[in-house]
Structures are given as structure tokens and as C-alpha cells.
């Protein structure tokens, strides 16, 4: 069903994804009962999952064909420009007391921009393979 690079990607991505799925709920569940050291360990574990997932994604992208790499480059560049613009605008709007946007909105803005830009890039090249 899957070709060799995709099978390899799935095999590489599974351990950090499972670890993240276990670590994040556990960290959130025990957050109140933990001391500063425990919280630091939880945070480090979550960051480890993030870094591991990021490394797997990066390695996979380097092995993809050149159009897929171009698509990722265009989507990420546009997402970065648009997300930075929106976050900067919200930051200034907050500073000028025009809005009261929570810090967590930045993550949603980044994810939203990335999804929109990825769809835009895929539409541009008509590239619908998932991985």
C-alpha cells in the first residue's frame, strides 16, 4: 500500500508520536501535583517529543522528490511571512490596548497560516499525495 520512503517515515514517526501522545496528557494531568523539578522534567519530555518529531519530518522532507520540497518551501515561507505579520499586528494591537488577545492565540495563528499556505501550494502544483 505504501512505498518504501513512506513506510520508513511511518516507522520513524511512530515512536515520537506515541511518546508525545503519552507525555502531553500525563504532563497536563500531573502538572498541579509536581514540584519545579518534576515540571521541568515534564517540559523537557514534551520538548524532546517535539524535537524528535521535527527531526523525523525534516529527514523525510530531505528524501522527498524535488517538487514536494519546493512545495514545502513555498508553503513554509508564505506561512512564516503571514503568521509573523498577523502576530506582529496583534502584538501592537495588544500594546495599544485595542485588543486583548491571549498569548496562546499565536500558536493557532501559526498553525492556521501553515494549513492555508500548504493548501495554496498544493492547489498551485496540483499535488495531492499526502506524504
Amino acid at each position: 500500500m505504501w512505498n518504501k520512503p513512506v513506510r520508513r517515515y511511518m516507522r520513524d514517526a511512530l515512536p515520537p508520536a506515541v511518546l508525545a501522545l503519552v507525555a502531553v496528557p500525563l504532563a497536563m494531568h500531573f502538572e498541579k501535583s509536581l514540584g519545579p523539578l518534576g515540571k521541568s522534567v515534564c517540559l523537557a519530555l514534551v520538548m524532546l517529543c517535539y524535537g524528535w518529531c521535527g527531526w523525523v519530518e525534516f529527514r523525510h522532507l530531505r528524501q522527498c522528490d524535488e517538487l514536494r520540497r519546493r512545495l514545502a518551501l513555498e508553503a513554509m515561507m508564505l506561512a512564516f511571512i503571514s503568521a509573523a505579520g498577523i502576530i506582529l499586528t496583534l502584538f501592537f494591537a495588544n500594546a495599544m490596548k485595542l485588543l486583548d488577545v491571549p498569548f496562546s492565540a499565536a500558536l493557532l495563528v501559526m498553525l492556521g497560516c501553515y494549513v492555508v499556505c500548504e493548501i495554496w501550494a498544493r492547489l498551485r502544483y496540483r499535488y495531492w499525495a499526502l506524504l
Partner: protein
Amino acid sequence: MNNRVRELRGEREWSQADLAERLEVSRQTVNAIETGKYDPSLPLAFKIAKLFGLAIESIFEPGE
């Protein structure tokens, strides 16, 4: 950039998937090259030229 990839592929009666497999790229990449949405890198252009047994300039030519 204009190219003759579709024409050359047609002469050999290969599908886009066949050509993609021979070039070790995705079928979408072949489609994007044929429709002129994407210009291949120099290594891929050389690979295409070698596969069809032609010089690069006889497959790819500068467009407007």
C-alpha cells in the same frame, strides 16, 4: 520554460507513473513538468535527457 516531455513520453507510450518511476520522482512532479507549472532542477533535467537519449536543449527551451 517549454518542454517536449509529454510528447516524448507519448512516443514511448509510457504513462506519467511509468516515467515517474524511471526518474525516481512522484507522478505529480512529472505532471507539473509537462504542464509547465514546474521547471525541473538541472540534475533532473539531465536525468530526463539521458532517459530519452537526447540533449537537454532539444527537450527544454526557454519560454516567455
